[in-house]
């Protein structure tokens, strides 16, 4: 009977791994779909136009407009942030205007004075309507997205060709004043610049007053050609009060005065541009794509006639924002920036064939031709680099260009002015190019976003369900049907798409596949879910409510920009709350004090397990307090390691531990930091080593894993320390050794990488750290009680450890069970040393056979990622180790104290609280290792550790930076299965002293308990992983919701979108390493099975 049980109750390794993979895949598809709809991606073309590019094809016949006198020598560009077109209109009939209406009468006055001098347009901005993206838009003429691939994340400087660059190339002196965003976008590009801080939205006047102090004196002077002034008051007023507020009236009236006096200061050769970068909603916000946000105002004015044919009613009522770039370029006589997709504002140019009237500059057909050529050149370059423009669209555009160019060249050769039809077809070409680009770059896909959110929510639900039903799902093997259904539906959708549209839309196929498999799974398990929730009213641990409340708070905090900015502290706060709640709750349940009397009322039918003796309760209580103290200490110290976000302002001081040592000026301080780091590194290695030795995992002489632990881990640590010493030397000292230092800088880290890689490989090949010692046959009297082992490990293991962490009993038990069975088993087992004298075998480290490889892998990987961090951050990693240990101990003592240890009914389930704590700790150490969810804070230095001369490919540096950025996610995810093992590992402590009776020895089997209950082991492992995925996935879902709901929030591109990216990538990396950790555990299980088979050849029968 026993035998059959063992036969059926095997670990369902593949099923566990398959289910987890499937869950992760669902999350990935959801993230992919949402991000595809939300984060629009565009490639940057880093080429610049030159005067030679715009030469007319029929050289000679037409003058190069670059070299001739431009139409305007100078320009004044007044950008009034968030100047909505409604603000600029003037309505005489409106007798009771709202605060934002009729406050800019000067524009209407100038227009009605002379229509050929002034024009007011609706300025159509492209989403995202945030100031930075808009500045990029109307200087490059392109349609910037959130991610312009190719720009360097470290700084926000614009690398694409733009007006400011072209003006500088043409020798024009650009003077800038106002919003300091410009200074970040165009560093060192201005002749003179007066930036003012733009961050404080509540400050309506600093920027504006700063500009007003200087603008008139600058205009009177002669040392400028283009003057850009960016006023922020209107925008900030909108954010603070909304448009419908008296403060807005004051601000607009002030702007009216500004425009009026600037016009008075204008000269005849100067063009005035007044524009808003975007509009605002009724609440004063912007960022999205609604008409209120996109409709800004554009006003053009000059003392010289600006519109050559004022009578023409073809005045465009709406001007797309991109169109300003080619227009300004041609009016000022510079080449159109390379990536511009705008088209010139035709009414500003004289019609072809018209007398020029002493005016210089191109006429309409020439301007359009220059524009068409530039746009076509850009389109060709872009389509050769990227393939996000549909090919059929591209070929249509090529055909249109071929037609336009042949027609234009023909008309030039005939000498006749271009016909209106030709002008119209040129305009049509430009418009269709812009529309094509806009369709692929500048539009959210609400449907995709919604689908992604639904999928993510479904995946979270699935995780929750799976964690509750893990054992049932495992016995049924309920994976195949959803997988098959998913694949079928995905293929069907793909085929349908191919049939109807002719091309494949991969995101939707994946979405359909993931969605259908989710739905099928939920459908099949819906009944059981309701049933099981009734049958099991409360989880064994009462911490469920508090843990999920903390998780809910954490998710809610992701919806507020203030909390995301203060994320490091918020997470610490929540972690501290839940951590302190654990002992309070234990005390509330009466587990912290020894039971007053043995006959205290117990519900009948409860577990027959003996209550813990008083000394054990007291001892565990002390252990709990100590662990809490360690947790508290590491929480407190980790707060000192945080970096600062830009948004936090001057009140935040970045930690002194974040700078690389080489940058530190003070030599004594540097040495101190180095010593501290070295001590932390030594402690990190020593603690890991000690733990392994303590549990007898270092005894096997030939085992590869032991080799890794004894030699490779310390070797990597030593190499790391040496590398720090080399890289910390200032560059100017030791000139004579420069060559050697350079060599060492690349050799030392690479050697460390190699050692660690070898260690990981060895660990994977043979993860067993068990050492078996055969003893001489024992006397017959020790049939049930094996004698204390006399063997002493050569590593100097303490006799105490030897006593308590060797599991000699285990083997005896297995033998007993075999002897109870058929006689042949006993015969075969005893084969090695005869029938009666059984071989007594001691197995060192069998009690930690699962956790030891995991701990070792975490140690190896942790040393590796530590190498990628600035040297001074080694203490952060030590804190991480201590905190993880403290959390594990808290979890273990809780399990022991609440009496669930010997309780087989609960299996080995890990309650929610430790899982939530674990995930929060991962996030906390993301911050405590100097990272922030912003692109500017990525530690690029990691890419050059071991590669001081840079890389040729991009894969390796990207991997290194990813490992650096998500180091804490990686380590915590990898170590997650330890939560399952730790209560078993520490189990021995409370049963050991004084009692080594026969019954007690039954209990001291540590992780072998798992081996004895493979079914519960696999279901607990699946449950733990599903819970961890749920906790992480819920956070991803929350930040996805934040990005979707708040997509027109002021901070969406500064705070929420980067947070989403980091959260999603953190989930991706973390889930991969979680799977790795689980896979390692399963690998160990395979190895243990093999080991047992080798030990007892007949057990396999």
């Amino acid at each position: 009977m026993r035998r059959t049980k063992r036969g059926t109750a095997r670990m369902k390794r593949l099923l566990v791994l398959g289910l987890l993979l499937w869950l992760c895949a669902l999350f990935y598809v959801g993230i992919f779909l949402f991000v595809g709809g939300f984060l629009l991606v565009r490639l940057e073309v880093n080429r610049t136009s030159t005067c030679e590019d715009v030469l007319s094809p029929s050289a000679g016949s037409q003058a190069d407009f670059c070299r001739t006198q431009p139409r305007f020598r100078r320009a004044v560009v007044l950008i009034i942030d968030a100047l909505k077109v409604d603000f600029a209109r003037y309505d005489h009939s409106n007798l009771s205007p709202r605060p934002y209406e009729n406050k800019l009468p000067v524009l209407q006055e100038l227009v009605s004075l002379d229509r050929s001098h002034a024009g007011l347009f609706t300025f159509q901005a492209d989403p995202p309507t945030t100031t930075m993206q808009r500045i990029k838009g109307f200087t490059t003429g392109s349609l910037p997205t959130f991610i312009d691939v190719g720009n360097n994340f470290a700084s926000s400087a614009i690398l694409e060709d733009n007006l400011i660059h072209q003006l500088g190339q043409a020798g024009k002196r650009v003077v800038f004043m106002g919003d300091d965003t410009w200074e970040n976008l165009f560093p060192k590009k201005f002749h003179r610049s007066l930036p003012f801080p733009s961050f404080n939205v509540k400050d309506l006047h600093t920027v504006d007053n700063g500009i007003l102090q200087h603008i008139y004196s600058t205009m009177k002077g002669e040392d400028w050609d283009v003057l850009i002034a960016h006023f922020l008051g209107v925008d900030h007023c909108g954010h603070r009060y909304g448009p419908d507020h008296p403060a807005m009236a004051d601000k607009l009236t002030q702007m009216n005065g500004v425009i009026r006096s600037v016009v008075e200061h204008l000269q005849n050769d100067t063009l005035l541009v007044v524009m808003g970068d975007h509009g605002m909603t009724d609440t004063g916000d912007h960022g999205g794509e609604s008409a209120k946000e996109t409709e800004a105002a554009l006003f053009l004015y000059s003392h010289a006639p600006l519109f050559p044919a004022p009578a023409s009613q073809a005045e465009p009522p709406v001007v797309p924002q991109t169109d300003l770039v080619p227009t300004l370029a041609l009016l000022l006589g510079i080449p159109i920036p390379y990536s511009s997709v705008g088209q010139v504002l035709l009414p500003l140019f004289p019609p072809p064939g018209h007398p020029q009237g002493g005016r210089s500059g191109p006429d309409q057909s020439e301007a359009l031709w220059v524009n068409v050529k530039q746009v076509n050149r850009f389109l060709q370059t872009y389509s050769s680099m990227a393939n996000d423009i549909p090919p059929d669209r591209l070929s249509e555009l090529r055909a249109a260009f071929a037609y336009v160019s042949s027609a234009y060249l023909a008309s030039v050769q005939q000498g006749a002015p271009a016909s209106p039809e030709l002008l119209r077809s040129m305009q049509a070409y430009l418009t269709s190019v812009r529309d094509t680009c806009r369709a692929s770059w500048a539009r959210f896909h609400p449907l995709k976003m919604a689908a992604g959110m639904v999928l993510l929510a479904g995946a979270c639900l699935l995780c929750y369900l799976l964690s509750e039903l893990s054992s049932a799902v495992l016995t049924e093997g309920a994976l195949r049907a959803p997988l098959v259904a998913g694949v079928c539906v995905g293929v069907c959708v793909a085929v349908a798409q191919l049939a109807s549209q002719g091309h494949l839309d991969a995101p939707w196929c994946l979405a359909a596949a993931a969605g259908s498999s989710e739905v099928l799974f939920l459908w099949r398990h819906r009944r059981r879910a309701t049933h099981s929730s009734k049958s099991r009213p409360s989880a064994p641990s009462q911490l469920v409510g508090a843990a999920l409340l903390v998780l809910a708070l954490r998710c809610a905090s992701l919806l507020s920009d203030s909390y995301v900015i203060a994320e490091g502290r918020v997470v610490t706060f929540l972690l501290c709350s839940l951590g302190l709640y654990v002992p309070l709750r234990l005390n509330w349940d009466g587990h912290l004090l020894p039971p007053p009397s043995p006959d205290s009322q117990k519900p009948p039918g409860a577990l027959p397990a003996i209550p813990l003796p008083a000394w054990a309760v007291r001892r565990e209580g002390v252990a709990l307090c100590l662990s809490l103290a360690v947790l508290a200490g590491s929480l407190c110290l980790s707060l000192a390691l945080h970096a600062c976000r830009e948004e936090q302002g001057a009140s935040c001081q970045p930690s002194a531990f974040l700078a690389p040592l080489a940058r530190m000026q003070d030599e004594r301080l540097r040495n101190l930091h180095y010593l501290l780091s070295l001590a932390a590194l030594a402690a990190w290695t020593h603690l890991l080593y000690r733990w392994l030795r303590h549990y007898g995992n270092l005894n096997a002489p030939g085992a590869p894993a032991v080799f890794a632990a004894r030699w490779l881990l310390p070797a990597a640590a030593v190499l790391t320390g040496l590398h720090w010493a080399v890289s910390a030397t200032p560059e100017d000292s030791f000139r004579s050794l420069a060559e050697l230092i350079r060599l060492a800088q690349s050799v030392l880290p690479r050697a460390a990488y190699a050692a660690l890689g070898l260690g990981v490989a060895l660990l994977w090949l043979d993860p067993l750290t068990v050492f078996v010692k055969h003893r001489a046959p024992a006397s017959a009297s020790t049939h049930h009680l094996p004698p204390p082992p006399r063997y002493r490990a050569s590593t100097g293991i303490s006799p105490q450890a030897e006593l308590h962490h060797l599991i000699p009993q285990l083997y005896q038990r297995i033998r007993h069970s075999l002897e109870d069975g058929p006689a042949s088993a006993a015969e075969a087992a005893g084969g090695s040393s005869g029938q009666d004298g059984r071989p007594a075998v001691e197995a060192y480290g069998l009690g930690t056979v699962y956790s030891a490889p995991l701990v070792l892998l975490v140690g190896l990987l942790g040393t590796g990622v530590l190498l990628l961090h600035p040297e001074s951050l080694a203490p952060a990693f030590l804190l991480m180790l201590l905190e993880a240990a403290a959390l594990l101990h808290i979890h273990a003592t809780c399990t022991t104290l609440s009496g669930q240890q010997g309780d087989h009914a609960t299996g080995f389930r890990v309650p929610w609280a430790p899982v939530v704590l674990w995930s929060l700790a991962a996030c906390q150490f993301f911050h405590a290792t100097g990272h922030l969810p912003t692109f500017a804070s990525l530690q690029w230095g990691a890419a050059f550790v071991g590669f001081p001369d840079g890389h040729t490919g991009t894969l390796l540096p990207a991997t290194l930076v990813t490992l650096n950025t998500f180091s804490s996610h990686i380590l915590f995810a990898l170590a997650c299965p330890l939560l399952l093992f730790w209560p078993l590992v520490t189990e021995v402590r409370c049963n050991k002293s004084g009692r080594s009776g026969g019954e007690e020895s039954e209990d001291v089997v540590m992780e072998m308990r798992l081996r004895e209950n493979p079914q519960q082991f696999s279901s607990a492992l699946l449950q733990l992983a599903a819970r961890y995925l749920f906790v992480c996935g819920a956070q991803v879902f929350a930040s996805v919701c934040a990005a979707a709901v708040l997509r027109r929030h002021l901070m969406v591109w500064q705070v929420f979108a980067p947070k989403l990216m980091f959260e999603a990538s953190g989930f991706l990396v973390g889930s991969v390493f979680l799977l790795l950790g689980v896979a390692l555990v399963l690998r160990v299980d395979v190895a243990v099975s093999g080991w047992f088979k080798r030990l007892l050849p007949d057990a396999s029968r």
Partner: protein
Amino acid sequence: MWDTEIRGMASAHAIIASSVFMATILPAILLEKFSVYGMHLVWLYSVAGSVAVVNIAVFWLLGISPPTKRHTLSYKISRLVRSCLYFLLSCLFFHTVVVLYGAPLLESALETFSLAVLLSSMTTLRCLCMLGPNVQAWIRVFSRDGAMSVWDTSLQITTGCSVLGAWLGAFPIPLDWDRPWQVWPISCTLGTTVGFLTGLLLAPVWIHCHRKQLIYKSK
């Protein structure tokens, strides 16, 4: 018997609650330019002091102090000294915990300590009044079946509410609303006080509602 006990508790709680209001109103009358935000520490100490005095007075008058075995003067003095020491230790404990939650370590240490004093006077002081300087008894009271009288239950409720109020009070601090009450530690002290008042109100009501279920073991 139940009703008289609950009524007595309600009136005692009303007295303590009114002392909090008096501690807010009196400085406003006596001091010029007094405001809860502007002179926050003055308000804080006035509240803490009045709560302490009234608590001690009430419990002394009602006689709900722990039974003393000996009545010698030296024993009483040693109890008093130990109580003071415990109060101080609890202030330090709360200070440490608040720092752990992320309060600034060095700057505004006085404010943090004041919050700790307020928390202690609303929680520890009541423990001292009811249970005496006996940590074992304190630990015992805060477990599910540890309460041995209605007063113990009320102690559970008020302490829980005060701590919960302080915890909730920390929530608005990071928000960028720039309100005067977001300054450290005003929101937390306000939260503590509000939580304490809620607890005072809630305890008699809750006990009244659950009087059927409440079974107290004899001491």
